[in-house]
């Protein structure tokens, strides 16, 4: 989002400024990671960014888990001329919802992604070629295990908090169940303990669009001039609808036309309505930055995620951590409706954990946690939540 007053990254006191993409390579053979699908993978390069300063006690670190198509670039700009800052720049920075003047913030690209962490576009050490479709099947648990290795590498024994929305929220739940002693708090936004069958259905159509694109070539398209851009763009268009709401589409576009004030009665015109044009634009922009094999892999990881399937009833799996929980849902989110958040809350109450729950009123559907106008409300809650967590720890 472009703000009214443009600051350069160096002068904006509310920005983390210029940031550097960092990376580390772990899981060198013979210490490969054995994935949930039983295949092993290594070495694994992890791309990440950090903001703020890790204190001497190393107890002020917050790990951000990004969503399906996000990346490690949360805030600030990598180069002064970058048009856009990181994906959560309005929420992460000095004095912001996650305050980088107090906390050391880390975000890493997910395993299987295409933004620097080992994924289908990386070269397989065995063949010297991109993994492509042969990249081993992975799960949310595998993603989290890789991130835990990064946190260990950074010398952080216990995170002050793990926070994430959507697929990021699933990772937060996995952190809590898998590494109960490694976190002091967990913030789960617009997420749930599993993806609904309706969500799987939308993912299925997206994957179908990629598979049926003739340029997909069974996932072996890296050396080719043309990539499966139509399939990937279509997958994004479908998914994007699930991130919006009836209300937000109505507000933003209504039935307004894109090119003229009159209907053309021409079937060939694909972008007559503004909403059509918008979806096409989203699809087009997406293929510039995302890889089709990664999309297949990560949507599948999302489908497979079921916290209770993996760790047993939540009232038991989440009872093992002393972490404080903050669960937030949005009124118009139909991909991860409030009922999903309530299920987590109910289990946490059953487990007698410290839990705070809020359903925020927003027209922006699932995407609300990323929309700048919705962030002040999230700030009101997340900021004191971390402050209290940090202070109560310091008291002990």
């Amino acid at each position, binding site marked *: 989002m472009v703000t009214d007053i443009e600051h350069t990254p160096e002068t904006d006191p509310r920005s983390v400024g210029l940031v550097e993409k960092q990376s580390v390579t772990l899981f060198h053979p013979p210490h490969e990671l054995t994935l949930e699908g039983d295949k092993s993978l290594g070495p694994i390069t992890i791309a990440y960014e950090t903001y703020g300063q890790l204190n001497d006690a190393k107890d002020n670190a917050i790990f951000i888990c990004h969503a399906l198509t996000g990346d490690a670039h949360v805030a600030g700009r990598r180069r002064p001329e970058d048009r856009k800052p990181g994906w959560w720049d309005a929420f992460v920075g000095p004095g912001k919802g996650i305050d980088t003047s107090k906390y050391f913030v880390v975000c890493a690209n997910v395993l299987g992604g295409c933004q620097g962490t080992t994924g289908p576009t990386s070269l397989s050490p065995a063949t010297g070629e991109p993994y492509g479709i042969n990249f081993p099947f992975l799960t949310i648990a595998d993603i989290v295990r890789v991130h835990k290795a990064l946190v260990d590498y950074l010398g952080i024994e216990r995170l002050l908090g793990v926070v994430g929305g959507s697929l990021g929220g699933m990772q937060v739940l996995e952190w809590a169940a898998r590494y109960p002693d490694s976190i002091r708090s967990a913030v789960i936004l617009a997420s749930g303990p599993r993806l609904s069958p309706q969500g799987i259905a939308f993912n299925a159509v997206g994957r179908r669009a990629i598979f049926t694109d003739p340029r997909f070539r069974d996932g072996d398209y890296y050396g080719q001039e043309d990539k499966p851009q139509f399939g990937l763009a279509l997958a994004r268009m479908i998914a994007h609808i699930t991130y919006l709401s009836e209300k937000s589409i109505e507000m933003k576009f209504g039935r307004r036309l894109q090119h003229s004030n009159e209907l053309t009665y021409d079937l060939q015109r694909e972008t007559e309505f503004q909403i059509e044009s918008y979806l096409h634009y989203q699809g087009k922009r997406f293929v510039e930055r995302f890889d089709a094999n990664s999309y297949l892999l990560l949507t599948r990881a999302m489908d497979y995620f079921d916290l209770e399937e993996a760790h047993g009833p939540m009232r038991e799996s989440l009872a093992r951590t002393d972490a*404080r929980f903050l669960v937030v849902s949005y009124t118009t989110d139909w991909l991860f409706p409030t009922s999903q958040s*309530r299920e987590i*809350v*109910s289990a946490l*109450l*059953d487990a*007698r954990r*410290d*839990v*705070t*729950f*809020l*359903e925020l009123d927003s027209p922006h559907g699932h995407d609300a946690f990323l929309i700048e106008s919705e962030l002040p*409300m999230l700030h*009101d*809650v997340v900021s*004191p*939540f971390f*402050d*209290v967590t940090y*202070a*109560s720890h310091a008291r002990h």
Partner: protein
Amino acid sequence: MCAKRLHMPDPLDVLTDELIMSQIERGSRVIDLGCGDGRLLNRLKVEHDCSVLGVELDYKQFVACVTRGVPVLQANLNKGLEDIPSGSFDFAVFSQTLQQVYRPLAVLEEILRIARRALVVVPNFGHWKVRLQVVMQGRAPVTDSLPYEWFESPNVHFLTMRDFRDLAMRGNFRIVNELPIIGNRAVGQAWLPNLRAHSALYVLERPGD
């Protein structure tokens, strides 16, 4: 704005808090329904080592709870508390709120599902000042403890101590304790309480518990 929603003026708030705290054993699990800014729960947590949970609908009050470090759920008491597992709490506090929910009996049922005991503070519309205003002036009453004009009152029900006892009987709740609040004091055995008390604290439980 917040003050009008749930709470009486300050001195009475403090008195009510003290009174409620005196009824709660150390180390209990306590839920406060309509917990406002979390002041009482924070005291229970810090001073009585209780583990606490607030329920509050108002966004500003909710944020105040988070800022105090009081865990809190945003929920509408009228719609029910179905996400809260049965028997999760030793005590449920329900202070100056019963007269504001649409179906008091259903809410009390829910409260005694999630908690072993309910501490219910209700205003007594049988207080002599209220009676006098109705009889002498022929108007809806406005008093220190009921400071609202009829058209802006959050109270949707009007009850007296007698009415509350009837409700308890009807819901098959056992009144473990009844403490009329007269002036600035809670009185164990009061003379003409339904005339003299502006509010009362009831401790309820399910018979056989």
